[in-house]
């Protein structure tokens, strides 16, 4: 078999490929289910049912998708500019710490002001958390993959410190958790008696905004130009450094927003298990969507479906929930590989001997 580069990738291929990748990963999952002695079709039925089978299930999927959309956007916009921010997890916690500091009684405003204020504070904290990495990169060319990743550990250990120290809730009976966000700061439910909250709408509106910025503004143009070819952007009079710092701050800010939705929306208070790796999963979300902001909404919902559905599948069929991780990982890998392969034509026989 031989490969040959294509000049043009046909449009239908770019749509078909992610779908084929999803089917392929479900096939892999089915194989694993058979090994685990569970009938695959029935298991998938429970997976879908668990994610969409009831009002509560749908709400739960939406609630899970919320932080994933935001961390997906954080990764997506940074990767567009070829700034490899692996630190969304830490930036998420930075946002969460900030809203805990201002939102547990220190400041109390009416709801209509308090909620935007919390989002602003969370975004700022996320942006501040990424600043050291981007500055080190621009000044000393320190690899941002390393610094953003290591910042995660620093911030998470810092969270663990404040939860056992200054921010520890005296009423928590010794648990390392912070006090609850004041009532005026809690994000309202958008489906009654479920956990789906206002943050979901914020996430979708944010995705639309990022889509607009990337496609329709000069700033988005610069982000793409710097990402594709920073040297040509520089020669055309654009400040690569300024663009990079701004993109990084926006990326960190988006991850910070995810910290706000989880603290003020889902949980109501800060704990150490606020995020089961949303920051890292955001990278998968962004890659699955080929960094397209609208695509990120769909891929976040897809991943949320798998994770939420896998919980109920695991209960019903007595299989481990880790299958969800397998499906997600295989889907992302097969999408990435097949997106590369669409660039080529295939020859299965070497013609003429």
């Amino acid at each position, binding site marked *: 078999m031989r490969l040959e580069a294509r*000049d043009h990738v046909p449009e239908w291929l770019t749509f078909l490929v992610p779908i084929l990748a999803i089917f392929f990963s479900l096939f892999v999952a089915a194989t694993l289910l058979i090994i685990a002695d569970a009938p695959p079709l029935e298991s998938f039925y429970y997976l879908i049912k668990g994610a969409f089978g009831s009002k509560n299930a749908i709400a739960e999927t939406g609630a899970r998708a919320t932080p994933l959309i935001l961390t997906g956007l954080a990764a997506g916009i940074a990767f567009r500019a070829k700034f490899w921010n692996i630190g969304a997890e830490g930036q998420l916690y930075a946002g969460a710490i900030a809203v805990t500091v201002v939102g547990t009684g220190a400041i109390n405003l009416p709801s209509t002001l308090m909620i935007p204020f919390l989002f602003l504070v969370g975004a700022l904290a996320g942006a501040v958390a990424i600043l050291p990495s981007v500055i080190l990169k621009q000044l000393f060319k320190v690899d941002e993959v390393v610094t953003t990743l290591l910042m995660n550990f620093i911030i998470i250990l810092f969270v663990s410190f404040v939860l056992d120290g200054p921010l520890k809730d005296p009423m928590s009976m010794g648990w390392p958790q912070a006090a609850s966000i004041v009532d005026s700061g809690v994000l309202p439910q958008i489906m009654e008696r479920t956990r789906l909250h206002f943050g979901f709408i914020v996430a979708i509106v944010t995705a639309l905004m990022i889509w607009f910025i990337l496609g329709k*503004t*000069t700033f988005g143009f610069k982000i793409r*130009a710097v990402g*594709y070819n920073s040297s040509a952007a520089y*020669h055309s009079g654009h400040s690569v450094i300024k663009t990079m710092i701004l993109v990084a701050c926006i990326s960190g800010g988006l991850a910070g927003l995810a910290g706000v939705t989880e603290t003020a929306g889902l949980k109501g208070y800060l704990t150490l298990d606020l995020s089961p790796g949303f920051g890292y999963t955001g990278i998968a979300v962004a890659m699955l969507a080929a960094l397209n902001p609208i695509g990120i909404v769909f891929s976040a919902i897809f991943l949320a479906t798998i994770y939420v559905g896998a919980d109920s599948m695991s209960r019903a069929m007595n299989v481990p929930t880790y299958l969800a991780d397998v499906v997600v990982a295989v889907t992302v890998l097969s999408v990435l590989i097949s997106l590369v392969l669409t660039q080529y034509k295939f020859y299965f026989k070497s013609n003429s001997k």
Partner: protein
Amino acid sequence: MTKVSKKFGTLTANENISFSVSKGEILAVLGENGAGKTTLMNVIFGHYIPDSGTIALKGVRMRSGDTKAAIKSGIGMVHQHFTLAENLTVLENILIGRNPLWGWTLNTKAAEQKIMDISERFGLKIDPHARVLDLSVGEKQRLEILKTLYSNCDLVILDEPTASLTPQEVDNLFVTIQSMVKSGLSVILISHKLDEILKVSDRILVLRHGKVVADMARVKANKALLAELIVGRKIKRPIQKKAKFTSKVLDLNSINTSPTQGSPMGLKNIDLELRGGEIHGIAGVAGNGQRALCELIAGQIKPQSGNLAYKGVLVNSFNVKKFMAMGIAYIPEDRNIDGVIGDMSIQENSVLSELNNPKIATPRGFLLLKECVAYAKNICKKYDVRTQSLSQPARLLSGGNVQKLLIGRWLERNPNVIIACQPTRGLDEGAIAAVHSMLLNAKSDGRAILVVTEDLDELLLISDKVSVMYNGSLTAAKQAKKLEKREIGLMMTGSKIEETIR
């Protein structure tokens, strides 16, 4: 090679091409960019599988699409862009891929002996233990040829081998090629430079739009005939109009800079004066500070001492955006890296430098997409950028069209100063003529133009004044008409600049 065809989608890159090379012959392959030269060579070398047709070497039909087999049966290729590992030595670069991966020792002694033999036989002087990154361009070229010869090949393909060599290095290369064919090798030489081909080849093959349009002995060819065959029509050479100098636009006064990436010696005591309506040509072997000079005038680097005045006003802050706003345009040497963004569309590339232009975006930063399209359409039409659609990625454009797009983008800004660094490197005859006429038109519009080039024919053809750059210094400008190629060639190698000039 018989009836080879290769299609890419709807584009036919090669159509029924047949030719042969005999032992000890130098075959030159000529053609415009996109005429199918590179495709053809890639077919021979096994990178591409032809859709039809066969290739035979010494009577044995070759399996198509098998690079290893091509190498084994004695085909060697020297690519236009070097394929060397910079951090390894000459010897290691030659041995890469030739020794088994799993083995305890490299048999370097024998290899070194063989390399010395080859280099002596063909006059390819090189130190086998030098690191590649310390080599000059000419030496790297020699290494590439040596690498090919090391694998005992019978047919050597040289793709644009003289693109970045000085006249003296080109002469050396041709001596090597001659000695190669004398010892029974065959050579296929791909080049744009008609003079060189007429000097060195035995037979000339001209391709146009993927077809062979001529296959003739060198003795029957002449420059005008070849140029016509290549483009399929007569090329109108732009005519040098008489210069009418206007006012002084840019004035550099004893400027020194610290070393930069492309120019390790920095700039030394540069005096330069650019006037509207004149083309100032700068000659020099690459890497003697030309790049730093361009970057300085583009506002990318700042001087350590000395001063730069624009229209009589001293400039103190150096940044690209400010210099662009003042009316300076810089057409960089590496158009695909510093000029266009290959993965963005032609339309986006047309407005890349125009995001502050109120025609392109509102002051608040919203793109006016319709105006962007109109702007791009205008550039493509006005400057003859040939493209299927504006939404095509720029990397699909040929070199000539990329350059026309870039120059057009700058000209639309109405710059007072244009710096063009190697504006026609790697372009074909038709595109070179187009670029030259763009520059000459800009000149008669009263713009001041600085052209940096290694191509002395080009230098003397379009410049009004010429100075030579050597080791970071610039000679005083001289009228182009009073200079001879040989004289400039000597100055380029630094021999007694003062005496030659005065």
